[in-house]
């Protein structure tokens, strides 16, 4: 096999051979290669098929702007990354990659037929064709298009890698380690300022790495680079981040950096993270992101072997690889001449330089002449011929009278250059404005929106000298001018679509290689009435591929501008959005995966529940025991047993997750009066009261039992899920409406573990353990709260009941929760103590008609709707929501009211959420009058029970309503929500 390695060219390195595989074939490369440079060294130009037409594609560039050479990078099971740019993939021993978008083989692809019938697939084809019927989109069209298009199969296995992330801070963040970036870093790091310099490539140096001839201060540029990097490495205040893409620039100089750590390693340590996300807050940002060379738009410009001129220069000067034996150059810009001269000096034959411009710098013509290179000015390439690689090109002169007849020129490589586009992506992310610079045919940064400065080529200041000067000055460096020897002038012209003698409707001149968008598509979009580039882009998909149009946006814009006969500024510019290059989900997720995906809050008693075999359910961030199945029990059997045992003797329940707020201060009762609907002033110390809280709009927001521990101290409980928003609403009112009140709020949810004991034997169990509290019915009645000790530990003991049975809620300091639970549980065996979970708690409370906020209310339920007008202190002057309770819609008839339902068939348990109708005989669609909010099997009552919100429900007492369910319509009778012990006698068991 021929090798295209050139001895004596490329960056100095140990020539260590590295074997790799592409499309199942083994090749050899050299350490330091990218996959693209190694393939080119082996003479491989065909690396993939295009997205839509499945045309053969090669390697367009040598960097992250690559639009053609997308491969599947295979690091083993679960580790296949699709659409990786071969030009940025660092080679290592054993690297495996495959081409994409073909079937059955890269050279014989059946779908290539799309190319022949491309007249059937114009711009907007999908929008036009797959609109009808709408339902087909999900099931037929999208899956088909996805399979046919080059997005590759999504991974089906979990990602076996792990990722890390960290916040970093610095005074100066420099993006891009080319000459401008390094000059900036050297200057900025002379003080003690923390400097971070990041570059997407493995090796720092940027364009300098492709410029061995340049000299800085009389020394070769590479020597300047080496010593500069040495200086930076020696400074403690500098962090150098290679292989790090700054993918997003967010508010207040917050930037996202993705650093690749192991993808370039042959055998990475599995403990090492694959990538690291640096979340950087920088006082100042210096963007030294360079510029991207622009391709030229002519027929068949996508044939393998056609690549950017500067990239050929990079392959030669940096990797020591000749991209061909016989190269033609097609340019509208001076810089391609230098590429031609470099290649010529490396003994690559230059077939011709074809320059579309009328006048070319005479110095360049002279240099070409010296090397015997023919320059054809005022000429264009109008076609390229070849199956999988360019063989010859079609060249025409552009005369005043029109385009001349073509002439064929043989070549195996065509290097193109349509000028340079400053990389303003990050500048745009930061909301800096842009201005059109017509001599560059490009947008350049105008006014910054953050503390940021653009230097060098990304600011439209081309050339090594300007890069070094603007970089050093942005870094705060002295204005010492460096002596720089560099090659070329930086002038060029911008053409958009180039003239041709061919029928433009029959050729494909690509603008966007990755999305297969041609000049013809953009012109069609303009003909169909799209005038803004934002619309043209969406209609044609130009610039919408994963490369975000790095090589295509400006050409597309120029073509649209010409077609509209309007200046470019009036056609617009598409918005750049993060990420700059595709970024893995893994690195964005970081540690937020697996067991640290989110917080799971566990109570102190959780370990006991685990050992008792509890089944858990999430309730806000908490996990709570739902039920405790014994062998062979399903949930229904377990809940029936737990309910029965509690009503008959004793149940124990972990209520720790209830929100708790300590309200303290001389104005505590005044504050409670204003926040809750109930009156608090007369609540005695040592007593509890059920509290109901409304939002400003009069609807129920939360509820809970409140105990008064002292004149100036309330122990407030909230629902589990409502705790944060209750505290935050209380704080909001206190800080903004009533700052005059002397009262303070402290979350004590986690201070106390809460053990709820319910059942006729509850008092008997705790009596021997309690000190300092008289537990007798007289001294400690229902709804009393006392402070004392249990098992020698301080407790806030509440006599309350959410089950209708004699009940106690024992608050103990959380670190003692588990040990006291264990003690009570052991002692409770004598009473057949039964642990129960949230499901039994729900059934027990439903039997008593106690609501659960958020289940029996939905944010549109007033106290009266819920049958809880009794909780409103009518004599109070004000409380949150009071005025809303007089709103016309709230006092009007016809509101949904909470009622009890008993099904005609006592064994049928209604579905929660089921809709309710007044009569079953109506025509469909029937009129819905309400819905079921709670529904359970009640073991105690031996039948099903339910609660529902029904229009004017209370007036329907005793009447039947109907619940249409799949298969049958269920009849139920409206009644009270209290199903069990309506007199409340069970609370008073002695």
């Amino acid at each position, binding site marked *: 096999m021929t090798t295209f390695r050139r001895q004596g060219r490329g960056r100095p390195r140990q020539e260590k051979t590295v074997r790799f595989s592409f499309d199942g074939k083994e090749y050899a490369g050299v350490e330091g290669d990218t996959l693209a440079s190694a393939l080119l060294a082996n003479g491989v130009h065909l690396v993939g098929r295009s997205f839509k037409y499945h045309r053969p594609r090669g390697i367009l560039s040598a960097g992250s702007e690559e639009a053609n050479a997308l491969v599947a990078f295979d690091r083993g099971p679960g580790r296949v990354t699709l659409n990786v740019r071969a030009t940025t993939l660092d080679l290592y021993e054993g690297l495996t990659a495959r081409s994409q978008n073909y079937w059955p083989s890269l050279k014989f692809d059946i779908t290539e037929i799309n190319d022949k019938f491309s007249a059937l697939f114009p711009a907007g084809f999908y929008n036009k064709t797959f609109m009808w019927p709408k339902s087909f989109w999900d099931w037929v069209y999208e899956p088909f298009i996805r399979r046919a298009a080059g997005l590759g199969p999504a991974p089906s296995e979990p990602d076996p890698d*792990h990722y*890390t*992330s*960290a*916040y*970093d*801070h610095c005074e100066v963040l420099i993006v891009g380690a080319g000459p401008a970036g390094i000059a900036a870093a050297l200057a900025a790091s002379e003080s003690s300022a*923390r400097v971070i310099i990041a570059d997407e490539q493995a090796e720092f140096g940027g364009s300098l790495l492709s410029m061995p001839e340049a000299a800085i201060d009389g020394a070769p540029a590479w020597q300047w680079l080496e010593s500069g990097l040495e200086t930076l490495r020696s400074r403690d205040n500098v962090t150098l981040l290679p292989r790090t893409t700054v993918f997003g620039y967010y508010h207040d100089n917050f930037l996202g950096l993705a650093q690749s750590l192991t993808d370039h390693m042959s055998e990475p340590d599995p*403990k*090492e*993270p694959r990538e690291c996300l640096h*979340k950087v*807050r920088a006082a100042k940002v210096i963007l030294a992101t360079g510029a991207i060379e622009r391709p030229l738009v002519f027929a068949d410009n996508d044939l393998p072997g056609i690549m950017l001129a500067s990239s050929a220069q990079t392959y030669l000067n940096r990797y020591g690889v000749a991209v061909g034996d016989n190269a033609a150059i097609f340019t509208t810009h001076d810089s391609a001449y230098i590429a031609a001269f470099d290649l010529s000096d490396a003994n690559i034959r230059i077939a011709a330089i074809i320059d579309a411009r009328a006048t070319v710098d005479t110095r360049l013509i002279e240099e070409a002449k010296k090397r015997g290179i023919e320059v054809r000015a005022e000429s264009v390439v109008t076609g390229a011929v070849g199956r999988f690689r360019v063989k010859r090109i079609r060249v025409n002169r552009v005369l005043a009278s029109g385009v001349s007849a073509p002439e064929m020129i043989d070549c195996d490589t065509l290097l193109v250059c349509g000028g340079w586009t400053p990389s303003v992506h990050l500048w745009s992310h930061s909301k800096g404005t842009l201005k059109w610079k017509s001599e560059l045919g490009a947008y350049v940064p105008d006014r910054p929106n953050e503390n940021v400065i653009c230097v060098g080529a990304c600011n439209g200041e081309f050339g090594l000298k300007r890069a070094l000067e603007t970089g050093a000055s942005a870094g705060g460096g002295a204005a010492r001018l460096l002596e720089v020897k560099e090659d070329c002038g930086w002038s060029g012209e911008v053409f958009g679509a180039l003239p041709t003698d061919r029928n433009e409707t029959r050729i494909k001149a690509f603008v966007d290689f990755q999305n297969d968008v041609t000049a013809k598509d953009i012109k069609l979009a303009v003909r169909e009435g799209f005038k803004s580039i934002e619309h043209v882009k969406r209609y044609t998909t130009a610039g919408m591929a994963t490369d975000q149009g790095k090589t295509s946006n400006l050409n597309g814009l120029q073509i649209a501008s010409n077609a509209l006969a309007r200046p470019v500024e009036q056609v617009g510019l598409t918005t750049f959005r993060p990420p700059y290059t595709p970024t893995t989900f893994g690195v964005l997720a970081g*540690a*937020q995966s697996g*067991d*640290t995906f*989110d*917080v*799971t*809050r*566990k*109570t*102190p008693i959780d370990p006991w529940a685990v050992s008792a075999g509890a089944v858990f359910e999430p309730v806000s961030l*908490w996990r709570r025991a739902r039920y405790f199945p014994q062998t062979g029990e399903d949930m229904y059997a377990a809940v029936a047993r737990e309910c029965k045992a509690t009503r008959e003797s004793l149940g124990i329940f972990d209520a720790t997750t209830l929100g708790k707020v*300590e309200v*303290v*201060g*001389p104005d505590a009762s005044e504050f409670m009066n204003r926040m809750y609907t109930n009156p608090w002033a007369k609540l005695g110390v040592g007593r509890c009261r059920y509290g109901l809280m409304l939002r400003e709009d009069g609807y129920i927001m939360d509820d809970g039992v409140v105990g008064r521990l002292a004149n*100036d101290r309330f122990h407030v409980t909230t629902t589990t899920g409502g705790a944060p928003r209750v505290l935050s609403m209380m704080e909001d009112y206190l800080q903004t409406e009533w700052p005059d009140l*002397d*009262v*303070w709020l*402290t*979350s*004590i*949810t*986690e*201070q*106390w573990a809460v053990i709820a004991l319910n059942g006729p034997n509850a008092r008997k169990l705790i009596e021997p353990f309690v000190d300092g509290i008289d537990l007798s019915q007289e001294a400690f009645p229902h709804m009393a709260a006392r402070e004392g000790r249990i*098992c*020698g*530990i301080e407790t806030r003991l509440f006599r309350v009941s959410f089950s209708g049975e004699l009940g106690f809620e024992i608050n103990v*300091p*959380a*670190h*003692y*929760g*588990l*040990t*006291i639970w264990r*003690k009570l549980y052991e002692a409770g065996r004598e009473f057949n103590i039964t642990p129960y979970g949230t499901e039994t708690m729900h059934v027990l409370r439903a039997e008593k008609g106690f609501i659960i906020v958020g289940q029996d209310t939905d944010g549109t339920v007033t106290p009266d709707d819920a049958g809880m007008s009794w909780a409103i202190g009518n004599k109070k002057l004000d409380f949150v929501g009071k005025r809303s309770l007089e709103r016309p819609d709230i006092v009007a008839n016809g509101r949904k009211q909470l009622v009890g339902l008993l099904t005609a068939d006592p064994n049928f348990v209604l579905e929660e959420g089921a809709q309710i109708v007044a009569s079953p005989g109506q025509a469909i669609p029937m009129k819905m009058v309400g819905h079921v909010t709670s529904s359970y099997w009640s073991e105690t009552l031996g039948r099903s029970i339910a609660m529902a919100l029904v229009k004017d429900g209370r007036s329907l007492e005793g009447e039947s309503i109907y619940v249409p369910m799949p298969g049958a319509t269920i009849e139920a009778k409206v009644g009270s929500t209290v199903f069990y012990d309506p007199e409340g006698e069970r609370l008073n068991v002695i």
Partner: protein
Amino acid sequence: MSSNQHSNELTIDQGVVLAPVLTGASHEVSVVLVPERARFSLRVKPSNLKALSEASELDLPEKIGASTLASSTKILCLGPDERLVVSDVTSGGTLRRMFAELSSQISFSYADISHRNVAFEISGARAVKLLNTGCPLDLCLRAFPVGKCTRTVFEHAEITLLREGEYRFYVELWRSFAPYFVRLLEKAVKSR
């Protein structure tokens, strides 16, 4: 290391198990669970601060973010009217009795949150690096000097952070968030 300690047959359980990798195995960074402490959230309006300081003989820091340390009692100023008092358990009882007495003379609030929080000491040369895996603050000495404290976040958990030395930090958080916090630290230490 388990967090269990025994006192009169009842077991204190702070709900935290530290992996060996975090308990001082490396001198670069170590994470240690602080044993049981007494804690109070002390709330007082600025107008009464001086009176409370004098009556309690506690050196209550005045500036948000400031902290004081007297014998074993740390006091952190976390808000305009908010201080976190952390002491050993024995002094906690004394403090509570004193606060109860003073509350009839001065308008302020104290709430016992001894068991609401757990605390960790994170120390070593890589302490800042470890904290910055989840905490977005700039922890360089200039921006976050010794003695500074603040309420902040560590990934999805709210934490209170106090710098006690160049390489020593004190972190408090609600007890149910602690296992999540510890697990994140463990992952971060392992993957670096």
